[in-house]
């Protein structure tokens, strides 16, 4: 699909969609949203970019194969679950929270890092699947 409109629009939509995905990710603790949906939105951003500019350009933009995101994301989630076990002798996945709130973000806890891990894994999985399919087609 080499239309000028889509190509121009996708250049602007990519950062906006990525920002929305991060917003959805952070919103997800108490409200609808979270890592899974956020990750899907972020991968939609790249898929749209690939539609407009071709797969090669998107790959150049990403700089590395999205498959590498999977172990990274899993590791982030795993560490957020294991931290209470190693550091505080609490059961696995116990939520640890900071005492003082950070401006803008609010209180940080291990649950956030678990969600960030999910966000990264979902991106890695969806992009790997879609890239593989469109390469073989």
């Amino acid at each position, binding site marked *: 699909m080499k239309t000028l409109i889509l190509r121009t629009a996708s250049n602007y939509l990519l950062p906006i969609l990525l920002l929305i995905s991060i917003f959805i990710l952070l919103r997800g603790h108490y409200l609808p949203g979270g890592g899974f949906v956020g990750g899907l939105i972020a991968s939609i951003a790249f898929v749209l970019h690939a539609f407009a500019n071709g797969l090669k350009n998107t790959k150049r933009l990403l700089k590395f194969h999205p*498959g590498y995101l*999977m*172990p990274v994301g*899993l*590791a982030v989630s*795993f560490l957020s679950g*294991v931290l209470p*076990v190693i550091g505080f*002798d*609490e*059961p*696995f*996945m*116990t*939520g640890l929270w900071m005492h003082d709130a950070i401006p803008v973000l609010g209180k940080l806890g291990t649950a956030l890092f678990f969600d960030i891990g999910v966000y990264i894994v979902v991106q890695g999985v969806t992009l790997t699947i879609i890239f593989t399919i469109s390469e073989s087609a």
Partner: protein
Amino acid sequence: MQQLLLYPLLFQLFLSIFLMFFWKKIDAQKIISIVGGFIAVFLSGVLFYTVWNSGIQTVQAASWEAPYGITFVADTLSATLVLLTSIAGLAVSFFSSASVIPARLRFGYFPIYHFLLLGLTGAFLTGDIFNLYVWFEIIIISSFVLITLGGEKAQIEGAVKYFTLNILASIIFLTAIAVLYGLAGSLNMADLATIIPQLENRKLVEVAAILFLVGFGIKSAVFPLYFWLPASYHTPPSAVAAIFGGLLTKVGVYALIRVFTLIFLEDVFLDQILIVIAVLTLFSGAIGSLVQKNVRKIFSYLIICHIGFMIAGLGMGTEIAFAGMVFYLIHDIMVKTNLFMVSGLIYRIKGTNNVRFLGDLYDKFPKLSLLMFIPLLSLIGVPPFSGFWPKVSLITASLNEKNYIILGAIIFGSLLTLIIITRLWANVFWKKGKELTKRDHFLYFQKMTKAKKIQFLVPIIMLAGVSLYIGFGAEHMQQLSNRIASELIDNTQYIEAVIPQNN
């Protein structure tokens, strides 16, 4: 150190994530998998030691108290099975690194393999029925990948059968959980154990029990629902078949044991169904095995046959029957894993698994044949070997119960196993073999380097050693099985450990 219980679980998860970072470096993956296997055995050994000395261990995940959160429970049965899983896992890690071809390893064999072990460990440790379902999902998803990896035509055909039946089993299992939750309003197994006996609606409880029986029955390949197993287990590489044959069906048996000793108790109708199923499983597995011509298909049918022993123990429901059942479970995991590795070794020596073309093995490899003789003897249960002792308990139990049908079926199953294995021995090891045409691109065992040969033999020797220990140290194993049986009979210990304020 109260988190000790989760260490084997977390370590497998860590291993599979860590292995993913080495996606393209197969040699590094092999080393990590084997070293990790040793650490996993150590961690589960520590867990077993702790449970043996200081009783049932529990962890409330994320600090949510039972019955609301997910509880992880290690009673003696779980701890034993976790230990056996890690031992079999270590052996198959070794065997995979020697026998699976690089083309398969390149597509993430080892990470997925450790995910499978993670699922198995989790299923044995969880104390929550829905969480058990989640671990089953992890197990079947990773087993789908392992069974299709390589993408040969026969493999895909086997995988489709495996896939369909296991998805069906999962749906039935999920339905059963839904019915149970609608009845009792709880998913914690210990909590369910206190609620279910007080319910008025016995008919619906029975329906839920039957749904669990069907769901787990498909997974553990009992009588009318076993046909997916021999159709699929001979297609993947023998290392994969080893872990499948050794552990996957046993998870189904474990789930049956857990559910029918903890939640659905004292149901005469159910016990009768279990006994009928056990008898028919023993018959159909043994007779099916009799007509097979492929070594791995013979072993696949023997898996089904020997599931019957365990279901028979569960159906009789006395303490001594449980002891026999648990002992058989312990023995069977080690022996079946080893047998599939033996079939892989035969395949590497001769280039085929078809009994018609095999032969001469004893003539050409006398020492190897004697090594392979150990798991075969253990499987038959020739007296000092490991298969003999659980059958003593099972037969004693059936005599005590005056249940002569079970007694007959057990003897029939053992006798046919003896006939099948003797015939296998005569055909594969003693018969004068045909001259086979050498395949060009095939790495024969004879042509391997010394290091690779050792890698091939170490896991077989290791599991043969464990089998010998189970046989010759039967006193320890009997003690262990008796203790597990007493815990299974008296479920108050389990409930008390999970929900302390209960009484």
